């Protein structure tokens, strides 16, 4: 498989694996039939994401993008985090094989889903437009 060294590093030793029991937002995207599920937990303080963790069922790229996106959001404001595109995640991993780009999309969506959950939990209008009817439809 033509994964970059960076992808393989994050796959072999992923950062931020686990759950946050008292998370402020939890995202859950994908489904087992498609072969990828990401569960992403965020902790938010004063509009800033202070911690992020994930659990992922999926291929090497799915695990690596989960690891990378949780790294990237930490310390960012919610608004900044929402601007992290799937391309940015892929680029931070020195690229993904074309057939694996959907994993970076999933990572972006998992993050959006977690932020959406954060707003919902606080009964605030969510700025997140979740994609529906997509192959990896938000749960």
């Amino acid at each position, binding site marked *: *498989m033509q994964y970059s060294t960076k992808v*393989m590093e994050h*796959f*072999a030793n*992923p950062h931020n*694996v686990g*759950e946050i029991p008292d998370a402020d937002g939890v995202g*859950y995207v994908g489904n*087992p*039939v*498609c*072969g*990828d*599920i*990401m*569960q992403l937990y965020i902790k938010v303080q004063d509009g800033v994401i202070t911690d992020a963790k994930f*659990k*992922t*069922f*999926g*291929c*090497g790229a*799915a*695990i690596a993008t989960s690891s990378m996106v949780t790294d990237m959001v930490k310390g960012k404001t919610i608004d900044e985090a929402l601007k992290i595109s799937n391309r940015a995640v892929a680029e931070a991993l020195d690229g993904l*094989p074309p*057939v694996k780009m*959907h994993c970076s999309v999933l990572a972006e969506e998992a993050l959006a889903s977690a932020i959406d959950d954060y707003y919902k939990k606080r009964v605030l209008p969510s700025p997140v437009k979740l994609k529906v009817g997509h192959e990896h439809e938000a749960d």
Partner: protein
Amino acid sequence: MRKVYFDHAATTQPDRRVVEAMLPYLEETFGNPSSIHDYGSAAKEAIEKARARVASLINAARPEEIYFTSSGAEADNFALKGIALGNQQKGKHIVTSQIEHHAVMHSAQTMEKWGFQVTYVPVDKYGVVDPADVARAITPQTTLVSIMHANSEVGTIQPIAEIARITRERGVLLHTDAVATVGIIPVDVKELGVDLLSLSGHAFYGPKGAGALYVHKGVRIVPFIDGGVQEGGRRAGTENVPAIVGLGVAAEIAKAEVPGRGAQLTPLRDRLARGLLERIDRVYLNGHPTQRLPSHVNVCVEYIEGESILLFLNMQGVAASSGSACTSRALKASHVLTAMGVDPALAQGSLLFSLGRGNTQEDVDYVLEVLPPIVERLRQMSPLYAARKDS
């Protein structure tokens, strides 16, 4: 680190004798077999010798019944499209199964776009086609039935001889994709009763770049690659002489060694299968318990995904696959496991260990040692595993 190659279903390492036989044809004896001078004659003689050897391996009556192709996939395309197009005045219906290799399945789908009707017969939970289903699927418009000899993902062997009795009675041609069996277990076109059979050199210690289609004498087939007069006018393109020579030698070696290969592989296969079931919970063996290749152990590991297991295995020096090599870069679950009724989520965790003649008991034991911790680690990362423990 130990290196264990358990991906013989994807490809095999060419035999040293195969490679040595090819060498002179890579450089010295480089003529075009169609040329009418000594350079050409030397090349022509070499491919005719190879043709006889391949014919002998599968017990074809005549060397001219062997048409060399560039791969098993090309042989499959040639068989399906060549027969369907060549016999369409009789009818435009073909019958195949739901578990064929993509080369057959996608050829059939292309032919549907061309206006042909295709019936895809199902399989049972072991991956076996019921000959009665084939019999029911045949109509007066049917020209061809194509059922693979053994499935390359799960190793299940199909009742081809039984199906042949039906096709012969109904006056329908029978093709079998025998890429997974020729050179691995005994294959005899007369015993099987098939009219066409695909094989591929790299599947049995031969070279890449050479496959063949057996076409019983008298069968009406149109060329797939149009052009010159090579292969009796039925397959154009300058012949890949070194690869064809290599295929011939691989066939000769296989003829001598195949009878012994099962006896070597079966105990290893069974040790591996038993070990996996014992050491890892929630692991399921796929395929038929007895009607199976001596080389294949296909399992589903619940809660995790196949590719991630393979990547970790690779870091430990173990080469395996998640099923068909052709789909291992694709996204969807194996169509074979799906047809067998395996739950789609479970099918994402499929692993294929395909053994070959170089493998030893130490290889098996090494895999049994390194795999359980990998599975455990990935399960710890899996939301499905967590959810299952919660419930």
